[in-house]
């Protein structure tokens, strides 16, 4: 594209090539640049944002962090649905006559300036009482006065300054996670408190000074017992619950031996203290719980701003415009639509229910639902499935099925989405735990019986000592710390795991399936460039886009999508529209005659590359659009490396097979290519492969992959923005990082090896402890040293080695 020269002086105003607000490049044509207070703007949206901020003395916004502004679109109608009272009441956390509280998800929050501006909202409007940002979750909580400011006005205000709230009704889950992490933190606090104080109380005994205590000696034990009570009855319950639920399903998970250890520790120590036979092992008990809970906390750190469980409904709008009998429009929640209602859908809006077209024609983009990249033209009376996106002029539709019976909803009700995960029993640690538990019980009983014949007085103490020292504290820390660190290493390179345990699934993969549209290609599917003698005016772009949206030729669609900006209005009227099949299209818009098509169609002698579209306005050749299908960078390398790593590869596309030869070249003929696959066919394909004993990694992006992602052993969703909709998956990867998949898989395999080394180390510690216990020589001091030592070894080993491997693999 042609750029203006970097700096030029026009009518005394210095023009930099960037927009003052959003720092994007200015429009190609000088007439489209907007001037305001000696600054330049790319669009009126950005100008308005700047105007609002400077009128309220908030220019510091531009100084606090580097280039904070984001492009502001001008379409303010999209929040009309907030006028609906039903939606309002489900969004408001608290509401009264003059005080409302609402929490908005604002994906645009990214720097300190955002935080500052959003917390200074009260300076923009008197109706705002207070606003607080949660940076990690990208949420802002706003208290406002509904008498001065309505919910819709609030949303529009946020949108005008570039912070469009993303509104969905799926928020409750997040609160639950918050409560869980809070209660875990309190447990850690209590265990740490008890650990420290019991150690303090035990010091005389550690140093062999307990004889000096004289008459006070019993009280030390008593205080330890009191301190251990909350540890046993409050902190440990998580492990008891988990062990119990494992036992109910008839298998031994790692929490069973842990629970046995904890229970034995508590009751045997209590017995020792009250019978006056010894000081007990309360210090070991509290230390054990402290380390275990910290491991759990480390493992549970998740990406709070990402959502891995979104259902398709969050991709749908909450409300639509219904056209009433008297032809006035009203906003109605989607779930309240009834059969026969007439709804109006505008450019780029999603069609929420199955319906039929009422207007003459409508252009629908199904790429997200079916993978078909080419928009389809539907005529009057044709049935349209929910999930398509309208492209071009707004159109009206008649509702045929209510939300709960739509095609997509029924796809989602497939049993695969309700099936629980069979993965738990298969985990490495639980397999180890199964043997571990039996071996420990066997050893405990046989040594106890052995001691019964040698020294009957020691039977019980040896039996309990074995159960105590064998408590697999270090063992159960291996997974959280190995995979927890691996998760954070992967997070740094834009690969976000839903939870750290899933790395284990990644190790075993042997077949990788890719979706095409949006996964191997970028979302728009093709890359368009305009090369011309002079830049196009914004109004001309809109006219060409309108003209192209009349045709369903893939090149027209690509051009139309390229020229459409979010705020372009497609309301221009076209006269004399003609389409010459295989040649081009022409039409008269705004008194200018536009022609698009082949060289012959335009009648020009200029040499242009193939697969380009020429443009003439008023029969004057202006330039051409260069169109290339766009695959993500490094896709050929990706296939090459993966096949070298002995993975089976396939591509399952919902699109037609136009790209077959291209894709075959790109993959070096190493992947099986399948086209025209419907969502349920993809799902069945994955299930078939799994039946054949293969472990499948599915990589996809759209609703059409949702079933396959869920059915696969590992579902990986690709997205270009973490804030946009992704189907439910095990991990999310940022589009540009997809080419790192070979390294990611290699890293996962290495993490698996580190895990096994960690398990070996912790078993060795257990062996040492066991031999002392079996010999009847386990003293409380020895236990109090051995347990923390083994835990710390594991934590240090796992985290450091994983970080080191991560550096080695990803720094290339």
């Amino acid at each position, binding site marked *: 594209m042609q750029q203006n020269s970097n700096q030029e002086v026009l009518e005394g105003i210095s023009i930099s090539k960037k927009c003052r607000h959003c720092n994007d490049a200015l429009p190609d044509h000088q007439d489209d640049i907007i001037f305001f207070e000696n600054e330049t703007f790319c669009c009126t949206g950005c100008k308005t944002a700047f105007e609002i901020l400077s009128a309220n*003395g*908030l*220019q*510091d916004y531009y100084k*606090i962090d580097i280039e904070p502004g984001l492009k502001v679109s001008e379409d303010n109608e999209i929040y009309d649905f907030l006028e609906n009272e039903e939606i309002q009441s489900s969004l408001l956390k608290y509401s009264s006559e003059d005080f409302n509280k609402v929490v908005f998800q604002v994906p645009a929050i990214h720097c*300190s300036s955002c*935080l*500052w501006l959003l*917390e200074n909202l009260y300076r923009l409007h008197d109706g705002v009482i207070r606003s607080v*940002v*949660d*940076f*990690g*979750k990208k949420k802002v909580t706003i208290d406002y006065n509904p008498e001065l400011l309505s919910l819709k006005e609030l949303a529009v205000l946020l949108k005008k300054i570039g912070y469009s709230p993303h509104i969905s009704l799926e928020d409750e889950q997040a609160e639950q996670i*918050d409560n869980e*992490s*809070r209660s875990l*933190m*309190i447990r850690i*606090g*209590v265990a740490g*408190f008890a650990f*420290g*104080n019991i150690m*303090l*109380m035990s010091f005389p005994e550690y140093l062999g000074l307990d004889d000096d*205590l*004289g008459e*006070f000696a019993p*009280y030390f034990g008593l*205080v330890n017992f009191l301190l251990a009570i909350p540890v046993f009855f409050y902190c440990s319950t998580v492990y008891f619950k988990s062990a119990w639920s494992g036992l109910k399903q008839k298998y031994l998970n790692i929490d069973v031996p842990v629970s046995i250890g904890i229970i034995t520790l508590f009751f045997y120590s209590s017995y020792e203290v009250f019978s006056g036979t010894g000081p007990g092992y309360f210090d070991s008990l509290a230390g054990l719980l402290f380390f275990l809970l910290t491991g759990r906390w480390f493992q549970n750190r998740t990406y709070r701003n990402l959502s891995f469980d979104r259902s398709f409904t969050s991709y749908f709008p909450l409300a639509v415009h219904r056209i009433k009998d008297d032809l006035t429009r009203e906003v109605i929640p989607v779930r309240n639509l009834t059969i026969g209602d007439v709804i109006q859908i505008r450019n780029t809006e999603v069609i929420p229910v199955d319906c039929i077209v009422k207007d003459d024609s409508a252009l629908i983009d199904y790429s997200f639902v079916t993978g078909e990249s080419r928009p389809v033209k539907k005529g009057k009376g044709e049935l349209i499935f929910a999930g398509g996106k309208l492209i071009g002029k707004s159109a009206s539709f008649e509702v045929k099925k209510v939300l709960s019976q739509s095609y997509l909803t029924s796809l989602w009700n497939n049993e695969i989405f309700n099936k629980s995960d069979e993965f738990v029993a298969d985990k490495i640690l639980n397999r180890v735990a199964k043997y571990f538990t039996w071996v420990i019980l066997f050893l405990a009983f046989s040594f106890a019986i052995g001691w019964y014949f040698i020294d009957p007085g020691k039977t019980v103490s040896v039996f309990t000592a074995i159960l105590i020292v064998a408590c697999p504290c270090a063992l159960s820390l291996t997974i959280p710390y190995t995979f927890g660190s691996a998760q954070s290493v992967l997070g740094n390179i834009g690969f976000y795991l839903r939870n750290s345990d899933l790395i284990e699934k990644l190790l075993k993969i042997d077949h990788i399936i890719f979706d095409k549209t949006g996964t191997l290609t970028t979302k728009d599917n093709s890359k368009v460039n305009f090369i011309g003698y002079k830049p196009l005016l914004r109004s001309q772009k809109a006219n060409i886009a309108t003209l192209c949206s009349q045709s369903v030729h893939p090149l027209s669609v690509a051009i139309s999508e390229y020229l459409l900006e979010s705020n372009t209005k497609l309301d221009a009227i076209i006269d004399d529209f003609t389409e010459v099949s295989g040649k081009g299209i022409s039409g008269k818009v705004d008194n200018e005659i536009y022609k698009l098509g082949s060289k012959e169609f335009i009648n020009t002698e200029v040499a242009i590359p193939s697969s380009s579209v020429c443009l003439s306005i008023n029969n004057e050749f202006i330039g051409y659009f260069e169109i290339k299908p766009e695959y993500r960078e490094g896709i050929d390398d990706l296939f090459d490396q993966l096949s070298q790593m002995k993975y089976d590869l396939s591509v399952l596309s919902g699109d037609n097979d136009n790209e077959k030869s291209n894709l075959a070249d790109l993959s070096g003929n190493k992947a099986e290519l399948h086209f025209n696959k419907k969502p349920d066919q993809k799902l069945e394909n994955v299930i078939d492969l799994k039946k054949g004993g293969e472990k499948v990694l599915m990589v996809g992006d759209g609703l059409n992959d949702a079933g396959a992602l869920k059915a696969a052993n590992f579902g990986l969703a690709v997205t270009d923005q973490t804030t946009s909709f992704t189907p439910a998956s095990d991990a999310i990867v940022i589009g540009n990082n997809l080419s790192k998949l070979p390294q990611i898989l290699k890293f996962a395999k290495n993490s698996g090896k580190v895990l096994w080394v960690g398990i070996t180390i912790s078993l060795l510690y257990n062996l040492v402890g066991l031999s002392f216990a079996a010999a009847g020589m386990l003293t409380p001091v020895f236990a109090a040293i051995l347990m923390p030592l083994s835990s710390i070894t594991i934590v240090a080993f796992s985290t450091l080695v994983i970080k080191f491997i991560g550096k080695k693999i990803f720094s290339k």
Partner: protein
Amino acid sequence: MKIIIILIATSLVVALTFLVLFIRAVKAGQFDDTDAPARRMLFDNKSENQSDST
């Protein structure tokens, strides 16, 4: 030796106080978002006057 009992009792009371304060802080949500406060503390409260002059 009696002094040791008093010392232990005092230290326990102090430790308990901190535990209670910690639990209250967690329940009040102080640890829910650790990023925002780190950025918030860098903002200048004077900015309102400064920006008037620019």
